[in-house]
């Protein structure tokens, strides 16, 4: 094969890899994805049923931006309907800038907001992506994102936009109903109907999932050697992704074994952990962990203060949504994610504030304390940590159960609110 042919093959492999991930994670259907990457020439997937955007128009964006890749896709349901609903009711609008402002903590940290453009002209796409990593396109209800180094960045930005719009929609709807109840307002019929339609998309998907108990168990512990540790982590990481307890590359996983903490590397996809696990000496005698997850300090603090030896950190959506459900009048409203002073629980699991990383309001200062009383903790607007002593089975089952409980609790509250409001 010629050099050019080989390069084309490698680029195509990358595009195919992330196109497959979009499909397998339910983020888009294969026929509604346009994925382009450029080195010397532009390469793209060739099959797309999208009628309102041409491959040529997207190619023009490369002439306007100094980038490596471009992803344009229509999210799979219910995400498409969610974005449509947010375009109607969930926009933050300035005179010349409309955006969806995520409610979850991590997406806000890394992506700030998701701007909206009306239609997918190359100039408009280039302009808006010069300000943010991804954008919503009203025509066709699409998401467009880009990478400067690798197509993986475009995938991550797209996936994060899907996650944050999901969380925002369901949280917004809950708070809308709470406001209606508080103020004796009749809710907008259109919003209620729209919610029911979205819920209907959700439940067939849920019904297809196996119960926690019927899933094939993860590798049994305790591990006898380092190789077993790696195998256990790789397997558990994959399970978190297939069970949709984490999106894209967010989330992390660790094991404490023989004086070292084995932890997923920063920006590692949990379903591809082979070769992406750092072995960090507990005594801090090596800084090789500089590439480890940004939550390393939190993992280490949990190991130091508890008998747990296995930790999972995921971002299950309804746990994140429920962690933000608080009606208390509070002077710190708006800073709940980092300064909530209340001792709160959701479905019996402690909820703590904490930002990503090790800063003064970092979760390293809150999560380990929660583990003094529990084997799980939800970080406000962020995700769940669960821990176990022998292997990843218990923390995985715990996380899945917490998410199921949060989802049930969410719809129980919503149904109750609608009944109450309707009765008024």
């Amino acid at each position: 094969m010629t050099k050019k042919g080989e390069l084309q093959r490698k680029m195509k492999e990358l595009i195919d890899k992330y196109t497959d991930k979009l499909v397998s994670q339910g983020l888009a259907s294969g026929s509604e994805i346009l994925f382009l990457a450029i080195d010397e020439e532009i390469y793209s997937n060739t099959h797309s049923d999208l009628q309102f955007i041409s491959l040529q128009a997207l190619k023009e964006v490369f002439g306007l931006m100094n980038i490596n890749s471009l992803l344009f896709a229509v999210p799979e349901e219910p995400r498409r309907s969610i974005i449509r609903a947010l375009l109607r009711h969930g926009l933050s609008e300035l005179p010349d800038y409309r955006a969806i402002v995520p409610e979850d903590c991590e997406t806000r940290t890394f992506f700030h907001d998701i701007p909206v453009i009306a239609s997918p002209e190359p100039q408009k796409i280039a302009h808006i992506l010069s300000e943010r990593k991804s954008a919503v396109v009203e025509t066709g209800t699409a998401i467009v994102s880009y990478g400067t180094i690798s197509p993986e960045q475009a995938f991550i930005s797209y996936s994060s936009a899907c996650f944050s719009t999901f969380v925002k929609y369901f949280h917004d709807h809950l708070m809308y109903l709470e406001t209606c109840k508080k103020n004796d307002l009749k809710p907008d019929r259109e919003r209620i109907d729209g919610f029911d339609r979205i819920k209907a998309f959700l439940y067939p998907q849920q019904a297809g999932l196996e119960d926690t108990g019927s899933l094939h168990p993860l590798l049994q512990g305790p591990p006898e050697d380092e190789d077993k540790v790696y195998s256990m982590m790789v397997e558990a990481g994959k399970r978190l992704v297939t069970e949709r307890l984490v999106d894209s590359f967010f989330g992390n996983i660790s094991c404490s074994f023989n004086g070292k903490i084995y932890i997923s590397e920063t920006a590692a996809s949990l379903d591809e952990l082979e070769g992406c696990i750092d072995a960090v000496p507990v005594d801090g005698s090596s800084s090789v962990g500089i590439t480890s997850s940004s939550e390393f300090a939190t993992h280490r603090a949990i190991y130091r203060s508890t008998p747990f030896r296995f930790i999972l950190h995921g971002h299950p959506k309804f746990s994140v949504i429920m962690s933000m459900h608080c009606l208390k009048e509070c002077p710190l409203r708006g800073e709940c994610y980092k300064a909530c002073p209340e001792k709160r629980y959701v479905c019996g699991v402690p909820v703590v504030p904490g930002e990503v990383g090790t800063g003064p309001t970092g979760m390293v200062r809150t999560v380990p304390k929660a583990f003094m009383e529990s084997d799980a903790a939800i970080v406000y607007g962020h995700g769940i940590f669960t821990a176990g002593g022998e292997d990843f089975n218990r923390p995985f089952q715990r996380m899945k159960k917490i998410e199921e409980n949060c989802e049930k609790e969410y719809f129980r509250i919503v149904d109750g609110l609608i009944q109450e409001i309707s009765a008024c």
Partner: protein
Amino acid sequence: MTGYTGKSIRIDLSEGVWDIFETPPELCEKFIGGRGFGVALIREHITKPFDSEEMPIIFASGPLVGTSAPTSGRLSVVSRSPLTSTVFDSSVGGRFATELKRAGFDMLIVSGLSGEWVTIDIQDNNISIKDARPLHGRNVEETATILGDDGSTAIIGRAGERGVRFASIVFDGHYVAGRGGLGAVMGAKRLKAIKIRGTGEVKVADPVALKKAREEIMRLLRASPAVFGEFGLSEFGTAALVDLIHARRMEPTENFRKSVFPQSGQYSGYSMKTAYHTRKKGCRGCPILCKKVGRAGEIMPEFETVSHFGALNGNSDLHSIVEANRLCNDYGLDTITAASTIACYSEFSGRRLSPEELLRHVVLIGERQGIGDALSEGSRRFAESEGVPELSMTVKGLELPAYDPRGAYGMALAYVTSNRGGCHLRAYPISYEILRKPVAVDRFSFEGKARMVKISEDINTVIDSLTACKFVFFAASLEEYAKAVNAVTAREYDVQSLVRAGERTWLLERHLNTLNGFSRKDDNLPERFFREAGYSDGNVTIPPIRRKDFDDALDRYYRIRGYDKEGRVTEEDERTD
């Protein structure tokens, strides 16, 4: 015009005169500041020798200097390099840029050659050229003590006075404008030091928007393992990289004959912290505080310095490395080139130098005595003069830093495409090939690297023009900095317009090098990297780079850049305007 003072100083040391001129608004818009300013203004002089009367040395601040934008107090120093003969910029921290802005100036441009040794003294609008004969012959520490610590200083040591081709300029005692020998440019002008103090304020167009941008950047910094993580730069300084680069088996050892040094743990970030009980220090306004200072005030060496005075010279003695760093700072010597030139000499002479001999050779270079006189020319000139040019581990005459190119192919490509010679910071592919930021890529492949390197070069060029610190971009991006610079200047930059400004400066640099005869023949790695393996065990192999893959990647890079086949940018290329 907020973000800029709108005024700059031009001093002619031949005549002993100065004038204050308007900072051209078009320059601000197109070249942003810092490196961009310097490269644009040196254009008409670049074919002159570095020690000619016409050759200026430019000290340029950026629009964010003096504001609360994180890590933005840096300065660019630009001239023509005595070591590489390329256009050369050096980004340096400390307080100088802030004092310059507070004194009311965006830039200080010094040209001409003084008859006697002088210092330049600036206190707000009061500018004077002073007799520096009493300072002549003194090294940096002694000179700094005499000049006092009010305001900021830029000083050359004896190395700069004596024309060592890799002499540095030392700011505020220990922030170094290094690599290309800009200290020798000051020395050629008989300019011993500059002292500057300012009392003014830097105006910001929209303080509320700047506060918001700052908060976004700070959140990202706190979330970054490479910056504020347990093992990050804030904790261990850049020496945090010692263990990682060792683990990746790409640690230049014994003049790049090998790529792993088993004893490197003896000078790791952890070892330094433990042995010297270090505390944090940093540039003005920086939250990262990557500089580490020992309990007795010892300045801890950076990663490149420990690795090159360590592995590259087969030396595991931490204290000798710290002392070598102190000597280099005091003489005003670039540590990478000093260590690499000694390693070249060591291979040439066929014996490893003891820690004591290493230190003695640093002094000999600074004094230009004995063998030090030949070594003060840098490894390329030394190796050529001895008939062994293949022993010089340089690109365009600049010694390679502490990332073996056989262990990261984007880095290999970026070493040769760099406009100032073998430098890691022009594109810093280590960020994605090793540190996994913003995402991880295959370090043993050239596929896709041509465009990655090109984009990274443009981004890093504008970062130098904003005079921001590259470390902050392990966490934040131009997306956040565009907001900050817009808040300060009331302009409407976005990521792409900033990147285009970076590209403009980059292409102009390339054009200036073309004018001085640089072309494809200079974009090459030492032959060793194509012939010899670095390391091999059951898990990791660092083989030689395949020449054809490398050449193909360079061809692709040229086409993506729009260079001609010889790698040249011509006068007619409008992209440089």
